[in-house]
């Protein structure tokens, strides 16, 4: 799937999430799609291609998250680096192994957020508590959402690039 399409689909998914949460008034159930997208890019794209897509998504992510500016995306970048390190070392296909890796990625994301809030002078314990309180439930949500989103992206990849991920003999 071309990088532009990945960018547009990712942006569409994140925007739609915000609208759905607004329409149904269920803010506490945020699906953490930016994290799922970063994990997908880290596991499925090479470092340069995935990194550049993520770099173009960082500002829209900041606008959609409306968190403490820059901190959320900084943690996201670190998760992406971790996923790039794991790329090719876990089973292909969006199964349980990748779900566990996604959950670990979410925990890392939360830990980085808490560490950054700890270091920032103007953020207090409320910020750390807010992240800590949701850390485990987020990990679970991210695991499920990453698997679903990964399967959707894999299907789109197959549609646009049927040869991708298949070993075939060429004569």
């Amino acid at each position: 799937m071309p990088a532009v399409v990945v960018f547009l689909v990712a942006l569409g998914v994140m925007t739609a999430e915000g609208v759905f949460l607004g329409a149904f008034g269920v803010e506490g159930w945020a699906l953490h799609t930016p994290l799922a997208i970063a994990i997908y890019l880290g596991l499925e794209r090479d470092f340069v291609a995935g990194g550049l897509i993520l770099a173009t998504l960082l500002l829209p992510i900041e606008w959609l998250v409306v968190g403490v500016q820059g901190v959320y995306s900084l943690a996201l970048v670190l998760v992406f680096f971790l996923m790039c390190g794991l790329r090719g070392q876990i089973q292909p296909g969006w199964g349980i192994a990748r779900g566990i890796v996604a959950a670990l990625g979410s925990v890392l994301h939360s830990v980085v957020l808490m560490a950054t809030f700890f270091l920032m002078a103007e953020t207090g314990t409320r910020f750390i508590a807010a992240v800590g309180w949701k850390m485990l439930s987020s990990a679970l949500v991210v695991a499920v959402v990453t698997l679903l989103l990964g399967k959707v992206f894999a299907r789109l990849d197959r549609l646009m690039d049927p040869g991708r991920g298949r070993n075939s003999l060429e004569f």
Partner: protein
Amino acid sequence: MLAWVKYHRRKLTALVLICVPLFVVASSAGASVGESTTTPVRWAGGLMGGFQAGMHSVIGTTGGFFRTLTGGDQSGEIEELRLEVEQLREEKTRLIGVLQENSRLRGMVGFQQTHPEFDLVAAEVIARDISPFFRVIKIKIRSSQPLEPRMPVVSAQGVVGQVHRVYEGYADVILVSDPRSRIDAISQRNRTLGVIEGLGHEADYRARVAYVTERDEVRVGDTMVTSGMGGVFPRELIVGEIVEVDLNTEGLFQEVVIEPTVDFARLEEVFVITNVE
């Protein structure tokens, strides 16, 4: 040059990835509420807001679309009657929706009438933030009047939050229960002062009242209103009701938790107060 870039592409990608968030951190207002936006950001935010508003209206009509699909053409008297019942049910549902909207709008008009001193700008809630750690709504402004960061946002039920960032026709509003929110408040019963700080980590939208000393007498059920001392909110706007009081014997202050009077889960329309001195 191109060969150099190609050779160092991995390092350059890592550098870009690290630098973008650090640049955002450096150029932002940190963890405080209210941030001015540059013109490109205003336009880009406006574009995304328009996209979200479009999606919001599509989701609003989805229910009607599915009802149309399942209705279909029917033949026979029973089918006609069934169809009629369905239509009547649909009309009833729509009527309830209209009545509810009417009631909400009456409440808002009532708010406007009881507070004629405020210049109010109406706005529609179109989306929310996509992180579980923060409590933010996105609003579509129904007026050409320019908004500023930190302007108070209210509804007929009470205080909603403060404007954080303003885009072209849209704005982000930090809710009372966001960890960044701090509102100077006072007890309506005995004028006990405190600062309402969002918790952000509760499943609901609760906040705490900080700096309530051991000597201050607060009770479950007390109503907290804005004190007007922070310079952001006008006086006497209802924020919430105290639901938990824990007299902390070790510390200097009591642990007081409030439930905001505004039902944020059902929030559809809000007002921005534009003339706070």
